[in-house]
């Protein structure tokens, strides 16, 4: 429930940002490094921009890049996992060894490598995070498919003459998707942190004025002593959204997993 509340807060902030943000996130509306007040609820940054508005627009970036990245990872990883788990044999071996290689590299490092290779920018950032999480999904789906291969209803489908493809699509995949959906919500939390992390390392959006949480955090870090509120509000936003997706994932796992239901 807490998770759902955090997500609703985060998602509505992201979607409604243009409507509810009190100021233009790019414009200078006050003096430098103002403390929180009624005119600027979260205070202002070095250039006098409203932090609340920037945090709201930042949520938008995190949500879009995060959801986009997880969606791409789910499609790539899901396809690979379905092929590996559904057909087995040599194909399975090749796909799984490849994912092993990717999994042995820390995801943030892999993302850094990809952004460095492809250049900075939003699409590249999305793709980098997608590629670093695809192997997780591939492994997960393959695992559930392997467990299902010996399930009675899958054997039953074989005895009524169903083709491999039919068994995979009609009997195995629908029963293997639940853990994948749960994992996707959990990965979304990590993805949001990764986006901020890449931004913090200077690999975020090309335009330095973009209200991306990680980029904003770097700027604010220098004034941590003088204006701690900036770091606290931005950090708080990251923490709430990440915890939200984590709790939502746990909740989904409990409500979707038939084994826990019984």
């Amino acid at each position, binding site marked *: 429930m807490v998770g759902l509340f955090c997500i609703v807060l985060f998602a509505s902030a992201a979607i409604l940002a243009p409507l509810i943000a009190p100021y233009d996130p790019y414009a200078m509306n006050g003096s430098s490094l103002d403390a929180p007040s009624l005119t600027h609820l979260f205070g202002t940054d070095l250039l006098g921009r409203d932090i609340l508005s920037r945090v709201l627009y930042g949520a938008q970036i995190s949500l879009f890049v995060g959801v986009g990245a997880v969606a791409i990872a789910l499609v790539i990883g899901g396809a690979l996992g379905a092929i590996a788990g559904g057909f087995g044999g040599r194909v399975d071996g090749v796909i799984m060894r490849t994912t092993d290689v990717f999994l042995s590299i820390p995801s943030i490092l892999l993302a850094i490598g990809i952004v460095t290779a492809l250049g900075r920018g939003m699409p590249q950032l999305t793709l980098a995070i997608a590629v670093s999480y695809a192997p997780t999904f591939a492994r997960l789906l393959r695992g559930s498919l392997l467990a299902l291969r010996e399930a*009675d*209803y899958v054997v039953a*489908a074989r*005895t*009524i*003459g*169903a*083709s491999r493809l039919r068994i995979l699509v009609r*009997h195995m995949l629908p029963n293997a998707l639940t853990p994948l959906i749960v994992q996707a919500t959990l990965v979304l939390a990590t993805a949001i942190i990764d986006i901020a992390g890449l931004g913090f390392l200077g690999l975020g959006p090309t335009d330095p004025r973009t209200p991306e949480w990680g980029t904003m955090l770097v700027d604010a870090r220098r004034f941590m002593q003088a204006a701690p509120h900036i770091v606290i509000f931005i950090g708080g936003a990251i923490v709430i959204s990440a915890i939200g997706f984590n709790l939502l994932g746990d909740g989904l796992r409990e409500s979707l997993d038939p084994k826990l239901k019984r």
Partner: protein
Amino acid sequence: MSREPLLTVKDLAVRFPIREGLVRERTVAEVRAVDGVSFEVAKGEILGLVGESGCGKSTVARAITRVVKPNAGTIDFDGQNLATAEGRELHELRRRVQMIFQDPYASLNPRMTVGAILREPADIYNVGTSAERTGRVAELLELVGLDPRFAERYPHEFSGGQRQRIGVARALALNPDLVVADEPVSALDVSVQAQILNLLAELRQRLGLAYLFIAHDLSVVRHISDRTAVMYLGKIVEVAPSAELNSSPVHPYSIALLSAVPIPDPAIEKKRKRIILKGDVPSPSNPPSGCAFQTRCWLKEKLGNPERCNTESPQLVQVSTGHQVACHFPDKV
């Protein structure tokens, strides 16, 4: 009943390799799940197959339904060899050999409606028009004593007995000649067991089906089957008409098994002698030499451990009409 054989299994063997090695996998040993099994099922006949868990009963079922491919032997089904069939030939043969599973909770896809489950066989084999298939679903549900309106529901809405009826209906969808029932009632409550057994017996009468009925419960097999085969460690040790096996078993293992069936009469129950087998079933990856049963055989002990039991594997021999036994000393019991 006609004696024309529908299914003739000869020297069937199914072995599962045990692999070891990280980089290069080598086969270090193998489990002989089924080790030279032969039997026949006539048209319209029910053959019971009994044995302890792990003796290879289910593997026989899986070989006949070709879920696993046998390593050796032939499975002659109405003139065609099921053991080696592939592609189209196998696809067409599958229609005629269907299976009922043990666990009615695991054998129905939880994400499909009952209607979709029962329709699928017809969809796969392109039987009839769409409307005919829907009609067939209702027909099947009625056949197994369920309300045709259940077609829209999901498996989790049903009890174990109802689910097993759905499993039976699925097996009948393609009008098979042979139904392999792998412990179809052992997961059910005793009160429901009788219902399913009666349903299976009734369907046999109405549709002229033959069953290979697998169970570990002798009283269940006795109730339904015409003939009974007893399996031990991947081999058939005795086959006889069910009544005869019950009244005069010959193989020491069958005798021990039957002596364990409780009799619902305290007076008789008190007097009769039970034979309790010592030890466990040997591992099928390392079966004993000679007779598979020699490590636990009470008859061997009584006869003073004859050498023949250790060295020679007994073949099935006829002791009376339709009664075969794999024991070196069938007359010493």
